[in-house]
């Protein structure tokens, strides 16, 4: 009887305030604000919301920029108390002074998680009062200019930093990162062309880079476990001469477990002979991804072999192939391929063992001789291989595909239980 009575009474209006906050947090801002009309008790429950998220679900079609801004002003005017998270995600308007006013209002709210992405147009210069957000743990900026005042001492609690198309000077960036001692995750995509990218981050575990730098120094990254580096921009492959001392680069990755290198960075390692193996073994490396590799390029193939030789505990190898027919250099193809095959045939594989390699995936496989040869090497040295996936390039004719398949399955395999999967490369 008692339970019956309870279930028909108004429980939701009398929940502890943090439970109510948790419920309101699970609603879109609009729905949370609409609870104000339920009853007098609910009129101002929403104003202490711990999170304010203005995203595509918030910006209604048919609202002009003036309306959107007016609503953001109003929400901030009503909001009371601390705010854990503020998120302004691709508003319909471009850089404007209102944004600085909002950031000023937020400066008293102990924000921990701040996300602000603008569409194209002028990059928005982050105002100086933002650099006093000392509680920040999570910072995500897009299409902004990050230019802290000289007195800025970094965000001491910052754990996660994601910059997308952010302008910042190379020197400033190095100083900024080295002052964020708690930083664990760093992602930079399409930012400034860094002259010299210096990263001194004793707690960094994850680093993802897409963009341009002339040189990179991972100075103090003893915990870095996951790295991904692609040089380039959305418009073109890099033109700058990038010159990276590979010995230093790999030496600064003692704890690396998961490494994704694009061929663009392999090409930027200082010219000269690629070593047979690295001076220091990548003992922790479990996953190696090499993307846009051209297997008829001697340097690419040499680096691939060098990294395999230097990674005794590798579990998983993934590679995508940069197809020649995208950038045809008709005259050169045949002799280069011959070079690679000669090189591969001349290698001493007696000490080459991929004793832990369980999974191989190769994307955009064209069936060219050097690619086939490379797979043959993998198959004959991977004793515990469980699965090899060959995703051939789009539009490969059945005849060619069948011929390729016949050749591949003919190869001796060190692991008898390895499952062989051949399929078309799915669209990204």
């Amino acid at each position: 009887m008692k339970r019956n009575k309870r279930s028909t009474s108004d429980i939701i209006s009398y929940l502890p305030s943090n439970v109510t906050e948790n419920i309101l947090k699970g609603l879109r801002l609009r729905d949370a604000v609409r609870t104000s009309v339920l009853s007098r008790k609910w009129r101002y429950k929403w104003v202490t919301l711990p999170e304010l998220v203005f995203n595509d679900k918030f910006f209604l079609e048919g609202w002009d920029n003036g309306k959107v801004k007016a609503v953001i002003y109003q929400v901030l005017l009503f909001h009371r108390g601390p705010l854990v998270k503020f998120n302004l995600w691709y508003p319909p308007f471009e850089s404007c002074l209102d944004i600085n006013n909002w950031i000023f209002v937020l400066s008293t709210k102990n924000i921990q998680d701040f996300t602000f992405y603008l569409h194209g147009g002028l990059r928005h210069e982050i105002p100086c009062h933002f650099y006093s957000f000392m509680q920040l743990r999570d910072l995500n900026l897009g299409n902004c200019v990050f230019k802290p005042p000289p007195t800025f001492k970094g965000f001491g609690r910052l754990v996660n930093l994601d910059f997308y198309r952010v302008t910042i000077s190379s020197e400033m960036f190095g100083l900024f990162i080295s002052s964020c001692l708690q930083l664990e995750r760093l992602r930079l995509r399409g930012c400034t062309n860094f002259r010299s990218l210096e990263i001194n981050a004793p707690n960094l575990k994850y680093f993802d880079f897409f963009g341009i730098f002339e040189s990179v120094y991972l100075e103090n990254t003893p915990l870095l476990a996951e790295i991904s580096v692609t040089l380039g921009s959305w418009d073109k492959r890099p033109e700058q001469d990038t010159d990276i001392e590979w010995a230093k680069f790999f030496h600064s990755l003692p704890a690396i477990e998961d490494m994704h290198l694009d061929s663009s960075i392999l090409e930027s390692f200082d010219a000269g002979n690629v070593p047979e193996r690295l001076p220091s073994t990548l003992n922790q490396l479990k996953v190696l991804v090499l993307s846009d590799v051209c297997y008829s390029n001697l340097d690419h193939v040499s680096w691939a072999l060098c990294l395999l030789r230097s990674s005794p505990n590798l579990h998983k190898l993934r590679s995508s192939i940069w197809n020649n027919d995208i950038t045809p250099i008709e005259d050169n193809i045949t002799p280069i391929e011959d070079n690679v095959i000669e090189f591969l045939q001349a290698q001493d594989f007696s000490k080459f063992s991929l004793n832990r390699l369980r999974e191989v995936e190769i994307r955009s496989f064209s069936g060219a001789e050097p690619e086939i040869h490379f797979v043959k090497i993998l198959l004959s040295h991977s004793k515990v291989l469980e699965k090899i996936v060959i995703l051939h390039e789009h539009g490969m004719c059945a005849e060619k595909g069948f011929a390729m398949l016949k050749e591949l399955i003919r190869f001796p395999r060190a692991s008898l239980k390895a499952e062989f999967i051949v399929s078309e490369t799915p669209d990204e």
Partner: protein
Amino acid sequence: MASSIENNNEKLTLKSSDGEEFLVEKHVALQSTLLQNMLDSDCSSADVIPLPKIDARTLALVLGYCKKHADASSSKQGELNSFDSEFLKDMDMGALFNLVLAANFMEIKGLLDIAAQKIADTIKDKPHQEVREIFHVENDYTPEEEAAVREENRWAFEGFP
């Protein structure tokens, strides 16, 4: 039955508001920050811990959740997610409120989050009249006051009756 193995260090006994005792493995109990703090502060695990606000039916659900999450390894996140969504499926609103209050009291963040989200999902996209009915919220606004509140937040009511 619970008292006979009370001294086992790896287990502790919880007592619901309606007097039922539950023997719980320590690692399962640690899903609750409240219990974790009690154990850390040297509260003897031989004692029966009373939970005067949580009835047996709710406590059994809470402990089922804790056991699943304590036993699953971190690599099985997908499995846990599907367990979570099944866990609250078809639960009536009374039971859901008991659960959210228990999770809040025992400080089990994951359970609090999913139960609160389930309640939020019931509210979202519904006109407020319907929300009032579902949760038995009595409208104590005068028509003038209600109109004023709507006016105050007019943008949020666009497209709603």
